[in-house]
């Protein structure tokens, strides 16, 4: 048996243990990780559309989506407005997430709040300090969001 043959024969045995260990560690993490939803505009596409529209999206981050019964969410500030974009697997989840957002506005000082759907992607914008009193920036974001396929 040559070195190559020996190494080939032993390679699976040698790598099996670390591989199993890695899988055992990573599988739970993968199971917990929320993924994008196919068939609806992704949060990445939404942020790209906002960026194309001249908005700075660097303060948007992936957030835990469970609070809105969503699969994947990004949240942060765009033009001093609080923005949340979520992908939902079902229409029921989408409706529940929208209601949850609106309920939240009743409990905090929000001057203006918008929730809009495109497919099963939800865009929620809240202006908490009258940064956009005329809603022009919000309207631009809504138009960019609506234009997504």
């Amino acid at each position, binding site marked *: 048996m040559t070195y190559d043959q020996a190494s080939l024969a032993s390679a699976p045995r040698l790598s099996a243990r670390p591989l199993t260990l890695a899988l055992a560690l990573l599988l739970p993490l993968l199971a917990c990780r929320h993924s994008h939803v196919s068939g609806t505009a992704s949060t990445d596409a939404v942020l790209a559309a906002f960026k194309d529209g001249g908005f700075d999206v660097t303060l948007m981050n992936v957030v835990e989506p469970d609070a809105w019964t969503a699969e994947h969410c990004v949240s942060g500030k765009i033009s001093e407005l609080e923005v949340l974009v979520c992908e939902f697997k079902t229409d029921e989840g989408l409706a529940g997430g929208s209601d949850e957002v*609106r309920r939240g*506005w009743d409990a905090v000082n929000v*001057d*203006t709040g*918008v929730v809009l759907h495109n497919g099963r992607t939800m865009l929620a914008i809240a202006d908490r300090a009258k940064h956009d009193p*005329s809603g*022009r920036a919000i309207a631009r974001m809504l138009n960019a969001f609506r234009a997504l396929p």
Partner: protein
Amino acid sequence: MAQLEGTKRGPGPGLDLGDLPPRRRDGAARARPAPAGKRPLSRPRCVLLWLSLLAPLWALSPTVARADGPMARYQGMHPLSPHQGAFCYIDAFHMHRVPPPDQRVYLVLKDGTNVFIGDPVALGYDGPKFGYFGPHPLAIADAQGLPPTFCYISGPHYHAAPQPPSPSLVEKDGVTWYLGALPPPADPGRVWINEVHPIASYVPPKVDVSMAPPGYHPFPYGLPATAPVPPSPAAPKAKPAAGPGRAAAPRPGQPPPAAAPRVPSAAGGHP
């Protein structure tokens, strides 16, 4: 909330050894502390305990759980309070903390959503606009549960969107005229829209009834739906409306001016 956080994180300022009972300072007490449930609480700890027990009730009180109560619901663009020129350009369903200051220019849907139906330009809107003269069917986008709606503004005015094509809507010189049947009887509140004052800089479409297309007839106010449509021969000459650019609309309890079809003026009729 600072009190609550302090409770969760343990003793706060002032809870040093000096506050503990003397027996806690002896060696025996340190070596073999009594069970927590049986140990008498010091006064500060007791206060904190009560605060922590009362915290959920405090958090559920209406003043905390709802900062300002439910927000007002709007569909589409609308003037902002106090209707002195500021305008909201959000063309979708949205919510504001402030309710409409003047319901004469709004329809209210069953779910409480306010839909602006007035002349947006007259109240500060500066986007694309489409001229109209007199009452006409009013299509409102994305307003579910809304029956067929009419705009009851009597004279020249604007809307932010064109109306869907219809044989009864005729455009002439950039202004749309409604040549169809008499609108449904106006809810008295709906014609009050003609009493709303525009902002000072407002310039309505430069048109009057003498420029109407053939077949146009001015719509009287307050007529029942079964009333015959007045014939429309030579349109009478426009005359200035009463007040600052408009005539008074009938109020509930007042007889409608059915006998004298209202002739909108070039300056009047806008909200």
